[in-house]
């Protein structure tokens, strides 16, 4: 089991012994955090494998490898696995590990619920993946859902029994997310060490506090939408069928009322991570701490009033199109503030470029490129051309892969020495960054061109005019996929290789904050007595002037 990566620390913290006691009955925030992160990495490779199938089929015009129906299952499952299995659990894992350490709490507020939040996930994904696995490995049934991760009816209802599997799995993930979010809010609001005022908290903690409220607000909305799909499919209701007085567009409104905040659930913690890393390696306090916090809050608020920008072509009235265009454009303001503040943080700092910093800098540039294309997509008349093309695919992969995923990798390198007590192999980390960055741009940048040239998304085959950029993109895809094996190796090596250099408690010269005051590796039980908060040593939340 990859889990026992942290099972053999040479400390004496009375860890429970045996798999069942240590992991199945886990209540320790660090163990649960580790399980979330390992689960996320497994799902990242599984979703990545599906992406490789997609890119292999799209490498040349004509169908070479898979039937269109299976191709659609790949695009659908790739999205569901990456969103719900890789990105979200990774951030929850980071929160589990780091939030108690960053606010000076001994553990999460609700440790047994924490256990349940995690252990629902493997079962949810078993249910989600079962129809596809049965088809691929045993030839049973019709395979997984193929109607896109957005599950738009009537198409999604044309699926067979996999509809029920998908919806049940989504319900389970939703329960897990809501419990995780409650736990994080309870921890942050109740368990902070004396003197850790809200406006002294690290920005990562702030970003998660706000994200957790988004989760609680929108996961029930998704649950409602998919339950209505379920009854439409199996119990004869017609919520989304015009023939029975329902409306297919209504599903899209409800879905995206969940879906847009969901997008920010995957990016706000990334903002938090980057806001920790850049000041550390610039050796200078975060510029405009309060503005950063308010910007995250503003983005969270705006996320609730922009949902229909995913639906500009459904035929909304002019007034609706204009409202959602203006509201969406407004998001550029707080997002711009964040980017400017990161640059100001670097300005007149004293920078070094260890792997976490490289990924954080890569994040700032590449996420911003995704932000630019997002701004372009907000312009309704232009969106009439961009919508549902590879331009959109390029956009959301820039914000999710070079945005969210890059920040998760930055966070992993940043806190890995604290988790394992050893320094990872820095030169391999550098290799991983440069290979990932080069290939990911080769993978996704040409997709802007494809979309503008007229290639729709979610198609398994295309006109030969699109062949060359698709070939380039596929090469980038394979390269990016292979580069991630290096990431897995570096993490495994750091967890297991005893010959690596021991990490100091502070790990990074410019690191500030409570998590760096405990030993490396972090003891199994930390902050059993609350730490004394020394304002000058606080993370980057110095707001005394």
């Amino acid at each position, binding site marked *: 089991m990859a889990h026992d990566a942290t099972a053999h620390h040479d400390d004496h913290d009375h860890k429970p012994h045996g798999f069942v006691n240590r992991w199945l009955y886990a209540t320790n925030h660090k163990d649960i955090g580790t399980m979330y992160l390992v689960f996320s990495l497994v799902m990242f490779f599984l979703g990545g494998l599906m992406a490789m199938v997609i890119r292999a089929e799209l490498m040349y015009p004509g169908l070479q490898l898979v039937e*269109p129906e299976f191709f659609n299952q790949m695009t659908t499952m790739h999205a569901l696995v990456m969103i719900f299995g890789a990105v979200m659990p990774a951030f929850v894992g980071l929160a589990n590990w780091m939030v108690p350490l960053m606010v000076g709490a001994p553990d999460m507020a609700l440790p047994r619920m924490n256990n349940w939040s995690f252990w629902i996930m493997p079962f949810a994904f078993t249910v989600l993946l079962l129809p596809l696995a049965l088809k691929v490995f045993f030839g049973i049934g019709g395979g997984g859902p193929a109607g896109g991760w957005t599950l738009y009816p009537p198409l999604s209802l044309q699926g067979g029994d996999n509809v029920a599997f998908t919806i049940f799995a989504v319900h389970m993930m939703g329960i897990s997310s809501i419990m995780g979010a409650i736990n994080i809010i309870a921890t942050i609001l109740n368990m902070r060490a004396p003197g850790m005022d809200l406006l002294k908290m690290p920005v990562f903690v702030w970003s998660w506090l706000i994200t957790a409220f988004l989760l609680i607000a929108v996961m029930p909305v998704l649950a409602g939408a998919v339950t209505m799909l379920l009854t439409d499919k199996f119990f004869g209701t017609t919520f989304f069928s015009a023939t029975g007085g329902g409306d297919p567009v209504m599903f899209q409104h409800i879905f995206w009322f969940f879906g847009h905040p969901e997008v920010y659930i995957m990016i706000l913690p990334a903002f938090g991570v980057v806001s920790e890393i850049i000041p550390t390696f610039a050796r200078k306090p975060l510029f405009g701490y309060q503005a950063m916090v308010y910007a995250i809050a503003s983005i969270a608020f705006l996320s609730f009033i922009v949902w229909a920008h995913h639906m500009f072509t459904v035929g909304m009235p002019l007034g609706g199109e204009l409202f959602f*265009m203006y509201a969406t454009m407004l998001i550029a303001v707080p997002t711009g503030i964040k980017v400017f503040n990161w640059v100001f943080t670097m300005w007149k700092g004293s920078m*070094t470029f260890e792997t976490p910093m490289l990924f954080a*800098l890569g994040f700032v540039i590449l996420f911003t490129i995704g932000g630019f294309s997002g*701004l372009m997509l907000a312009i309704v*008349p232009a969106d009439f*051309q961009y919508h549902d093309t590879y331009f959109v695919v390029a956009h959301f992969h820039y914000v999710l892969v070079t945005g969210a995923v890059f920040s998760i990798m930055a966070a992993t390198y940043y806190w890995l020495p604290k988790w394992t007590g050893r320094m990872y192999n820095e030169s391999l980390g550098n290799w991983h960054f440069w290979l990932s960055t080069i290939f990911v741009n080769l993978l996704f940048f040409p997709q802007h061109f494809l979309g*503008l040239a007229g290639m*729709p998304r*979610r198609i398994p085959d295309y006109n030969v005019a699109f062949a060359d950029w698709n070939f380039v993109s596929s090469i980038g895809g394979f390269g990016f996929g292979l580069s991630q094996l290096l990431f897995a190796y570096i993490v495994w090596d750091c967890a297991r290789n005893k010959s690596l250099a021991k990490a100091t408690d502070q790990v990074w010269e410019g690191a500030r904050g409570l998590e760096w005051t405990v030993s490396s590796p972090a003891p199994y039980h930390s902050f059993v007595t609350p730490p004394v908060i020394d304002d000058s040593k606080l993370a980057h939340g110095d707001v005394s002037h």
Partner: protein
Amino acid sequence: MQDFPRRRRMGETMKRIGTMMTRLAFAASALAFSLPGFAAVDRWKLNMTPGVTEVSQQVYDIHMIILWICIVIGVLVFGAMGYAIFKFRKSKGAVAEKWSHNDKAEVVLTVVPVLILIAMAWPATKVLVNMADTRDAEMTIEITGYQWKWGYRYVDSGVRFISSLERNSDDTRQLGSGMDPNGVKNYLLDVDRPLVIPADTKVRFVITAGDVIHAWWVPKLGWKQDAIPGIINDQWTLVKEPGIYRGQCAELCGKDHGFMPIVVEVKPKAEFAQWLAAQQAPAAAPAEGATPDTAEPAAADAAPTQG
């Protein structure tokens, strides 16, 4: 509307700059692919088409305006960042300063983006208002999306037919067909019966679907519109130049979503009138599948698969 020529000039300039950069950046690849076999297809295409209508030109112009604004902002921000990365590095002996605030900078960097956004929203709103105006159309065509073909009905004359992927493409695209897509003309972008519309005429489309959601998209017309069962959307176009313009379904609609292209043939008004008359004559084209509205509406309307 009035200042359209001015914006066109602006777009023209940008287009020229864009084309220049494209040529520079891809001179090498252009050389590599200037072999005779590649001459027919516009490969390595980078940008949106300006299209063939006033609306598509406006959409293109606004796209270019925003693109260039983004590029300028990007150059400034990434330039500042790049400067910081090279100038303020520890290895060069940089010592970190302590400040973490600058109220003036924060206000400026909030207000300036708002002004830029207003400058973007203004022309976008004007184009959108123009696009939404489907009044005074001279003819109406009903478009119905089916899995996986398009139904067209000329509402005024009752002419209707189904348009689906042309056979050569369909054979080639089968898994393991062993046929080379490069050898098929307009691979996946050709149909058995194109939609024919008159040039120089404001044509209104009413768009719906018979089974699942589709989207009707011809890039050169400048827009796409979802075709949704139970809902009727409308859009319009006015093409000046006769020609053949191609597009595809743009909303995932099942396994053959990638294989329901759209071809619009724009004929001069007189030729169009002749064509329409030929379709209306009951015996003229039964073999091609065209049936007058009165003959067999139910049969032609039936969705080919389950809903």
